[in-house]
């Protein structure tokens, strides 16, 4: 069963927070990326050279893996590359392999400094997984 919407913005006084859902860990990680990219709200320049990148990560636990994953995407954006499609090809609680494609970033509406660990926990629910992400903006 898939939760709709896959993510929703929740109240946070100084920063941004997202509640994210996923039927499985793979979906949770993809939806977290989708939610974060929707906050940044940029576009890939269709005239520019597209990119395709494989990201492989290891972490001691699944929360750290999630923060690492999103920080990888933020780093790509900071380098001027906007992911438009992210696919988690393989994931366990401590490892992932993902394929990211996109193009040169332009018209970014928002800047996210980093993904935080604030009260971060990935929870199992009857529908799959959920978590709350707080971004420093």
């Amino acid at each position, binding site marked *: 069963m898939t939760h709709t919407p896959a993510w929703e*913005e*929740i*109240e*946070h*006084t*100084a*920063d*941004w927070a997202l509640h994210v859902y996923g039927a499985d860990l793979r979906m949770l990680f993809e939806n977290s990326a989708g939610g974060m990219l929707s906050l*940044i709200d*940029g576009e890939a320049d269709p005239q520019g050279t597209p990119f395709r990148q494989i990201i492989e990560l290891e972490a*001691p636990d699944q*929360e*750290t893996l999630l*923060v*690492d994953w999103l*920080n990888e995407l933020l*780093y790509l*954006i*900071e*380098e*001027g590359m906007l992911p438009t499609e992210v696919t988690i090809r393989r994931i366990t609680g401590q490892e992932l392999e993902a394929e990211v494609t996109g193009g040169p*970033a332009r018209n*970014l*509406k*928002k*800047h996210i*400094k*980093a993904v*935080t*660990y*604030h*009260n*971060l926990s990935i929870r199992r629910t009857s529908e799959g997984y959920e978590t709350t992400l*707080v971004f*420093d*903006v």
Partner: protein
Amino acid sequence: MRKQDFKRISEYIWEIPPTYRDDMRVPARLYASERLLEAALGDQSLEQLVNTATLPGLVRYALAMPDIHQGYGFPIGGVVASRTSDGIISPGGVGYDINCGVRVLASHITYDEIEPHLSDLASVLYQNCPSGVGKGGSLKLDRKQFEQLLHEGADWALKEGYALPEDVKRTEESGRLRGADASKVSKRAWDRGISQVGTLGAGNHFIEVDLIEEIFDEEAARAMGLVRGCIAVQIHCGSRGFGHQVCTDYVRAFQSAIHKYNIQLPDRQLICVPFKSPEGQDYYGAMCAAANYAFANRQVLAFHVRCSFEAVLAGKVGDWHLHQVYDIAHNMAKVEKHEVDGKTVEVVVHRKGATRAFGPGFEGLPPEYRPIGQPVLVPGSMGTASWILVGTPGSMEQTFGSTCHGAGRTMSRSKAKKTIRGDKLRNELEASGISVRAGSMPGLAEEAPQAYKDVDEVVKVVSGAGIARKVARMVPIAVIKG
């Protein structure tokens, strides 16, 4: 948490005793009026304050300033002091924008002189001071030069011609933390930082042209060169992608390291290690490098601001020059000595959205400021007043030489974005005589004055509690934002 959980210590001091939660090691104190306390109960900021009271090695109490609001890990407005001997340093506590801070430059230009040129000046400032998401700067540095910048901070800027000697003297720590160690910084942080020197960034960062509306302390104002009816400039920004990456790297690395030191935390973002541990020293070296980056960054921006003033105003006003009033950090961990139970103790003071406010006599101040105390720069929200204060003996006695840093948010960003339109807000500000240049209208809406507390009330609390003294109040006439 409820109001009844607090013990009222004095008119502006409220204390949560350590019995409130089993894991508290020290009491938690909030500086606030009754109204600001009630506002703080509206979000998670006070629970975050209690969380900071659980950190190892703390002395006296965990503190929060009246501009407290919900952050991640520490509340914004949080201050703790941890013994260097057996306490901790927390990259999560300092936050991602290491040495985010404020610089104020002042002039003898009157409002009547600048008014006909204000719109041009705002446009030239917007053009000369790169701002917005991911924007690079005009400086092309090689790795050797960049390493020097990381070790020397404002001194690097002076050497390169971006600073006057007086600027450096009138900067917290003379714009250079000696503990900087660029070898403790990742390649990623180098890559992110090297192209962003002299840029403002986005979010709540800004450059603002202000009118000094009122002077409250003639002697202090004279020492700082503040004249009623004249123009000042504020620059608010930090260490850009460089600091963000340093924090990201160490928060990540310490997730494993913390197990070695058997530290239990109520929130993973409070991640910390013993200050004296190899990991703690590595972070301190990297954090100092990021702090130096921010000092240099604000200095290069000040250079661009001066160039803009010269380009627009030279020959049109009596004297277009801008002199530095001071430059302060409000996200930082500093090694300082403070009195605790009659003894001098070396502590790491973490100020997360709080400003150092050292009182008169402090040797680190330039001679002209020693009799009056350290200038404290408190920007208000966009379109409302900002304040210049000075540190007091009271801040040394009560708050590890700390005070507030701004107005403090009260409305969430998502609510501000939903209820306020950026273009409408810009028109309202323009109609009230404030020139606005902004790269992002949704970004402008999130920073609307309605989203912040009343800075005048915040200042009333810190001056009423004796942890700062009023010097001058300024109102904005031009705002430049990313």
